[in-house]
């Protein structure tokens, strides 16, 4: 339905101010109250991506067999790289019983993009440890068929009776070997566009990559295990714009502007009844329309500056959308690609067996534009090749009561400066026993085995919530008890005054970053006071226990972002 309407000026009717000035005043009123509806804007859908990146999709890590590669010459179709994730609505729209109402954002999968490094040749890259790793094989490339699938499953958080297995398919596409080995054109990178698949906001989605052709001896000309280096799978979603967060929602670390929209001043002069119709004098048709024309020429405003400041004025009422930042953690470790109780002493800072050190993996992510973080989710991956040295029964959860995983997300200030500071955003310290408190779903792809006693390779993940810090006792809304959303923007002197925020102990205070955060920092620490190793008296019950399986663990930072781009910095009066 159109936002603005008018009375038709049909033949023979008397010209009234309702014909001219009522619609002009309606438009002016909307411009003056930041209430131009997003539906009045063509191409108003907000987009966001879930970008999954693997250092490599390595056939040897997944398919190697101690009994010789011929033993696995016949594909069993059960070994896939996978990443589960969720797209929960922001805290203000989140329903912890999973009910969808008119306010729940409707998400659509719009595009899936895949790429990997082929060394700019119509060839495959050898992934087998030894002198040939990283080299090129044109012959072996004829066995590459890469299938990417997005599955969905009902989340155990909302229905504890459902299994750990997917119950639907959202998308499936194949990059064929022919398309990857063309001399003049290869589908790498490649995007499947205009998919238009509706996504359930409370279901778990699982991105799956299946490439049997990486297996040694599978098909012709396969003398080596292959790998897909720097593998990128990007899923683009769209949805209608949302209201942005404002201070009234108890946003932590919020600039003093509070996210409030600033009204413009646009007024239309309506002539008195029975006065002469004027054109270009005050109150004239052309002159008053010109007021609106001038606003449009200067463009309508929405969103924030890159520094997190508000625009001088705002015209559009809904200017926010989802943001999801997928952060790979603990991937590509060593030859096996896993971090487990067998090889933990190869991880920096773990120490020799029993490995009582505290290894940490860390990523930093710049903040080009502001966002408000609403949820942080983690994925613990237990997937392993059962035939790799040290792993005889497939990966499984750690069991040690003294083992801890500590996962933190923080805002960092001080890059290329002489001081630095951090504001904690989310923090979770769990043991394998307490993880169930935060778990929202368990996911497996292979239905032949159960979670607790698997004897062949399976793919298994725990998907869990990482609570946001609480500003004192102020609670937010999420899968588990969590803090209110946290603002993040690089800031300038106009936005250095921030609201209070909690620290990792949930104690309220002024943010140490002082309104100048530049980066997100994500850390995932592993520790067992009695040793992470299964050797040397370490606490791990056996070496199948996975601290990070093939493909690694993941942290998902989920929140709201506003429309971006435009002129920077804002000139006087928002122009």
């Amino acid at each position, binding site marked *: 339905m159109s936002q603005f309407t008018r009375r038709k000026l049909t033949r023979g009717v008397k010209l009234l101010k309702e014909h001219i000035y009522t619609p002009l005043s309606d438009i002016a009123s909307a411009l003056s109250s930041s209430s131009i509806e997003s539906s009045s804007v063509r191409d108003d859908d907000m987009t966001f991506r879930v970008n999954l990146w693997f250092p490599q999709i390595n056939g040897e890590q997944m398919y190697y067999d101690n009994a010789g590669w011929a033993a696995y010459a016949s594909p069993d179709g059960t070994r896939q790289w996978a990443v589960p994730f969720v797209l929960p609505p922001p805290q203000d729209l989140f329903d912890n019983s999973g009910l969808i109402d008119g306010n729940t954002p409707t998400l659509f999968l719009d595009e899936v993009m895949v*790429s990997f490094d082929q060394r700019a040749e119509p060839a495959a890259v050898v992934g087998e440890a030894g002198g040939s790793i990283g080299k090129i094989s044109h012959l072996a490339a004829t066995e590459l068929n890469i299938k990417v699938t997005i599955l969905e499953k009902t989340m155990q958080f909302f229905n504890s009776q459902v299994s750990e297995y997917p119950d639907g398919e959202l998308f499936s596409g194949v990059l064929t070997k022919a398309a990857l080995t063309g001399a003049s054109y290869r589908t790498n990178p490649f995007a499947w566009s205009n998919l238009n698949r509706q996504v359930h906001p409370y279901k778990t989605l699982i991105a799956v990559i299946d490439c049997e052709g990486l297996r040694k001896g599978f098909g012709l000309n396969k003398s080596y295990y292959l790998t897909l280096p720097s593998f990128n799978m990007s899923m683009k979603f769209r949805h209608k714009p949302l209201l942005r967060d404002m201070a009234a929602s108890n946003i932590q670390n919020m600039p003093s502007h509070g996210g409030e929209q600033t009204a413009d001043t646009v007024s239309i002069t309506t002539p008195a009844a029975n006065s002469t119709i004027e054109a270009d004098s005050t109150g004239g048709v052309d002159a008053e329309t010109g007021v609106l024309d001038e606003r449009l020429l200067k463009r*309508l*405003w929405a969103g924030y500056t890159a520094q997190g400041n508000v625009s001088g004025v705002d015209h559009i009422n809904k200017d926010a959308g989802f943001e999801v930042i997928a952060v790979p953690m603990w991937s590509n470790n060593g030859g096996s690609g896993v971090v487990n109780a067998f090889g933990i002493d190869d991880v920096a800072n773990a120490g020799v067996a029993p490995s009582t050190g505290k290894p940490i993996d860390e990523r930093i992510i710049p903040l080009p534009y502001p966002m408000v973080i609403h949820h942080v989710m983690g994925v613990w991956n237990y997937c392993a090749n059962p035939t790799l040295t040290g792993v005889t029964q497939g990966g499984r959860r750690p069991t040690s009561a003294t083992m801890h995983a500590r996962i933190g997300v923080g805002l960092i200030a001080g890059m290329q400066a002489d001081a630095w500071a951090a504001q904690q955003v989310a923090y979770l310290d769990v043991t394998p026993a307490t993880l169930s408190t935060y778990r929202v779903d368990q996911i497996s792809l292979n239905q032949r085995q159960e979670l607790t006693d698997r004897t062949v390779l399976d793919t298994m993940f725990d998907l869990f919530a990482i609570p946001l810090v609480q500003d004192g006792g102020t609670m937010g809304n999420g899968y588990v008890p969590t803090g209110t959303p946290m603002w993040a923007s690089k800031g300038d002197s106009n936005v250095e005054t921030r609201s209070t925020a909690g620290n990792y102990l949930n104690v309220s205070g002024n943010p140490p970053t002082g309104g100048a955060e530049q980066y997100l920092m994500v850390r995932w620490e592993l520790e067992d006071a009695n040793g992470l190793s299964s050797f040397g008296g370490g606490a791990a019950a056996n070496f199948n226990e996975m601290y990070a399986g093939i493909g690694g663990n993941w942290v998902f930072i989920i929140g709201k972002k506003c429309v971006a781009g*435009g002129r920077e910095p804002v000139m006087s009066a928002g122009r």
Partner: protein
Amino acid sequence: MIRELAKRLQFMSFTTVDGNRLDAFMQGIVERFNQLKPRDIERRWTQTMFVTGYAPALLASGQSSLPWLNACNLDSDSTDSSTPGYPTNKWRIKGTETPGIEPDQINGQQRVWAWAGEFSRPVRVNRLTIYLRTDGVNFVNSFNTGGTPPPGSLPNESLQDFGIELSVDNPFSPENRSQGSSAIQKVRFWLDQSKFSPVTLPAVTDMEPKYTVNVLNVPSLGRIIDIECDEPIPQNSRVRVNFVMPEYVPAVSDATWGEDPWFKHIYSLTVGVLEPTL
């Protein structure tokens, strides 16, 4: 003069006014505000971040160089006995040559971390960031030349051999790298200019989990190369971002990259892209 709302219908003193003209005029204005165009909105992009990175295992574990792959495709890089037409792209990156490395003379190599994307709509690449985190214990690199520096450098001075390139494939010859358009290049810059901090930072106590070894808890030792850019990319383009690291032959040229430079850092690499609203 109304310039945007009603280009063909204008009302001025002494011009005629009738119902049909006014009706068409008002219809145009109301329609215009009911169907605002993307160009009417100052900010109509959404930020997305492609986040990559990993921490290598210690050397003893057999960590491979992947995803760092050779920048130059030589005969010796193929495992096949002979492949007609190989290599189709001997050099797959433009403009990142650095003194002391001549891959086609088997004198060192350049290793590339390659990321690629295809965008069906026009986008703007607005951030390229690489963080080479060192800790002075397990991941050690002072980013200096060694005793036998590359040509043009002095011993023990800052390196300038790391490269970053963003290229767009030629739409008519997408697999020919020599035909690609190199849109951003950052090469031959002093890595000392990219210190995370010019001073030794104190440990941060506000962030959990903490590194337990103090030297690890501060990022001062690493290098962060942070390119804020605004590179427009046409629709249906294929974009390639390449981070290029040197691998010297120590007998010829040496630097603190060492023989296996991919073991020297914990990596965080990010590509930031602005995409239009749909």
